[in-house]
């Protein structure tokens, strides 16, 4: 911890010193505009830990059309942040993708409901209207598992309808949307968690498979610094990350970032809900991937046996536990 | 008792370009009901401008103008045969002839009757179903004339209605015009370039001089109505034609002075 403090103010010219080895350039594609969901990355970047590891990392903001997996596949980014189950399908389509580390042990996409909504569990969703991304595989999973159906309204990145309509149900990142909902005058919403239905997907870092194979050392160094960034962000002072996030996206208010970080911490999203300590930051569990593959196979989104766990993920670039 | 003039211009003047010279007037004119006034004058002297002022399509720059004691453009019983045929290209000949009647909301049967009569008069009955673009130039002008006549107006403004027609059709239509006039008693202002026609048809002839347009001569035609082929051989008629011709020729051509 003392060592960390010493590095809080990196010397920006260190890399330019004559004879210093050239930094390895890494481009990271974010899935959305910079927000605390990218807190670890920005913390590591702000603290200079990537540079320290010999890396020159560029964080590319995403948006409604981030195309993370496509940009990684086409080599426009080396690494990107995304969601694990969807990525399985992309791998099957031939995109050279490899999941290399967890961002969130549980993907924070949940259903948001008003507290007094009569819907109590997934079965009650039958016949309801839900605003969600139509391509969210969890929806197919629900229909199959509970033999229910519901009407999907395409997700439009807005919580206006939720605030205005007491019966409204929508998908949301529960580390972000609830903030805007309460700010908009509505009471704090209730959540239905996907994992409670047995749908346990990760928020992940995805790398270009070929790039990873050619740059194992850089990737390892990157992941080590990245995990260090997350740990520092949730256990230490988030100020450097928040300052960087604000610089990258001026719509980030302190109140919002504090809320979002608090949710990440409270819900143990990064460390894992059942983990005793922070040792599981970034960890991926092959067993969970087997479950995820089974889910998409059962949904007929993937031919049975088309992919093995080792085709989609690896833990070899993660630092030793 | 002299009837009040139907068309009454006092110091009427028009200039298009506020900075430029006047195109017409100042001009004084009183036309009594029932008069058939021919207007002669060189090209560009202001004949059409005069008719457009009287019809209310143009506003005078200065001077006063009343038709039947009312401001121009307020009289329902006025028809104007423009210098161009201005048929509506999307209507068949029959519908074009009915256009003005339709604007007056004349009932359909009455409209059809008047339309057929007018088409017969201009000898275009067989072209009733044709579109304007299938007509010859002269046929188009005749449709335009039929459209005005179908209105059975009180005041008729005619701007060279026979310009595109052969002599026989001209004579025929001239005689028809006089026949209708005997029945319907309208007042006409008739622009033409044919002196013989002017003399044959009208009770009064105005010769306009250009730069600016003004009345150079105002001649009464004292030949008795009804007029017919006899009239065309009458010595009075021939004398008048010669006189009007000479006076018209004495008026300088519109642009000659500048050329």
């Amino acid at each position, binding site marked *: 911890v003392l060592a960390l403090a010493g590095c809080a103010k990196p010397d920006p010219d260190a890399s330019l010193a004559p004879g210093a080895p050239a930094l390895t350039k890494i481009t990271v594609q974010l899935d959305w505009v910079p927000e605390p969901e990218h807190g670890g990355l920005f913390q590591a970047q702000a603290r200079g830990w990537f540079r320290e590891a010999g890396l020159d990392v560029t964080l590319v903001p995403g948006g409604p059309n981030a195309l993370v997996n496509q940009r990684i596949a086409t080599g426009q980014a080396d690494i990107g942040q995304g969601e694990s189950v969807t990525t399985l399908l992309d791998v099957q389509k031939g995109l050279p993708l490899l999941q290399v580390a967890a961002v969130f042990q549980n993907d924070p996409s949940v259903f948001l409901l008003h507290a007094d909504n009569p819907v109590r569990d997934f079965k009650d969703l039958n016949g309801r209207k839900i605003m969600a991304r139509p391509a969210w595989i969890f929806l197919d999973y629900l229909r199959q598992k509970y033999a229910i159906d519901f*009407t999907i309204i395409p997700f*439009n990145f807005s919580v206006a309808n939720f605030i205005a309509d007491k019966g409204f149900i929508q998908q949301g990142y529960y580390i972000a949307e609830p903030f805007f909902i309460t700010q908009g005058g509505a009471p704090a919403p209730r959540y239905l968690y996907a994992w409670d239905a047995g749908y346990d997907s990760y928020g992940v870092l995805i790398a270009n498979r070929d790039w990873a194979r050619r740059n194992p050392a850089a990737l390892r160094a990157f992941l080590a610094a990245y995990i260090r960034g997350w740990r520092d962000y949730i256990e230490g002072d988030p100020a450097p990350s928040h300052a960087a996030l604000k610089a990258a996206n001026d719509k980030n208010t302190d109140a919002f970032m504090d809320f979002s970080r608090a949710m990440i911490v409270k819900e143990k999203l990064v460390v894992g809900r059942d983990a005793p300590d922070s040792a599981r930051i970034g960890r991926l569990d092959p067993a969970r991937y087997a479950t995820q593959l089974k889910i998409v196979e059962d949904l007929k989104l993937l031919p049975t046996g088309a992919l093995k766990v080792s085709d989609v993920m690896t833990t070899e670039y993660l630092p030793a536990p | 008792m002299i009837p009040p003039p139907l068309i009454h211009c006092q110091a009427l003047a028009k200039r298009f370009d506020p900075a430029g010279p006047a195109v017409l007037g100042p001009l004084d004119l009183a036309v009594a009901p029932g008069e058939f006034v021919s207007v002669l004058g060189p090209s560009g002297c202001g004949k059409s401008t005069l008719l457009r002022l009287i019809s209310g399509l143009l506003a005078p720059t200065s001077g006063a103008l009343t038709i039947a004691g009312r401001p121009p453009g307020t009289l329902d019983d006025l028809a104007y045969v423009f210098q161009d045929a201005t048929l509506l290209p999307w209507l068949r000949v029959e519908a074009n002839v009915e256009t003005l009647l339709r604007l007056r909301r004349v009932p359909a049967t009455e409209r059809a009757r008047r339309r057929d009569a007018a088409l017969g008069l201009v000898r275009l009955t067989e072209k009733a179903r044709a579109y304007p673009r299938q007509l010859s130039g002269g046929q188009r002008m005749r449709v335009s004339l039929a459209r005005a006549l179908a209105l059975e107006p009180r005041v008729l403004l005619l701007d060279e209605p026979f310009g595109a027609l052969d002599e026989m059709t001209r004579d025929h239509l001239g005689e028809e015009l006089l026949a209708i006039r005997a029945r319907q008693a309208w007042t006409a202002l008739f622009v033409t370039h044919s002196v013989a026609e002017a003399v044959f048809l009208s009770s009064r002839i105005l010769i306009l001089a250009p730069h600016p347009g003004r009345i150079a001569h105002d001649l009464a035609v004292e030949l008795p109505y009804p007029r017919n082929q006899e009239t065309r051989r009458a010595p009075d008629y021939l004398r008048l034609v010669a006189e009007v011709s000479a006076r018209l020729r004495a008026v300088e051509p519109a642009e000659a002075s500048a050329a």
Partner: protein
Amino acid sequence: MSPRLLRRLPPLVLAGLFLAGWQGLHHALPLGRRFLFPSLPQLAEAFEVHGPALLGAAGHTALASLGGFALAALVAAGASLLLASSTLVRQALYPYLMGLQMVPVIIVAPILILWVGPGAPSVIIVTFLITFFPLVVNTTQGLLSVEQAHLDLFRMGRAARWQELLLLRAPAALPYFFTGLRIAAILAPIGALTADYLVGSTSGGRSGLGITALLFSARNEIPGLYATAVVGCALGFALVSIVSGLAWLALHRWHDSYTPSDS
């Protein structure tokens, strides 16, 4: 070769070139990006696999396109007549109509979902908003572009304002109106598709082309995405053909754009 065949030839040749170019482009791409631009066989396969789903989605979108289009045509005709009726009305109202076109759907979407509810009615409304304006601009310009000589005729005939509008300006504006309709016909399916993913809804696998496209896109089913686009284009072409037929019926007898070469 018959002259008729000869006239048919260039479009056919061009179509052949187009398809060959398509296939060539696919193969010219670096392997890693080839997935972005499916080959023709891939496209054909997508049609086979997703055919029924696409057909169903096309049905939804076709209805919405037609609904939005018809609504736009009617309202635009009315609005244009109003706008053309006086300079005053035009100066006062035109800015608001322009504003209507310029309001981003992103603002309209939540309001529609709240008040109208997601699904067909909202999709029709957004399609209407997208197709409406080109029609108004064109029709209004047509109504204003009447020949002065014809206006003089109607003024001379002491036509009432509404007579001038309906008997003169309206028929004279038809060529402009149909030009607007042609634009609207092309915008309608693409508008309905866009509207579908903004304010549409899907349940039981039934949705319009927009949500279908969204699904294909999010799941990286690129051939399916292209197949969706092709179906959307087909709708557009169908609508344009209908409009062209109507334009022919209304104009060929008298308008100069339809003059046969020999007359």
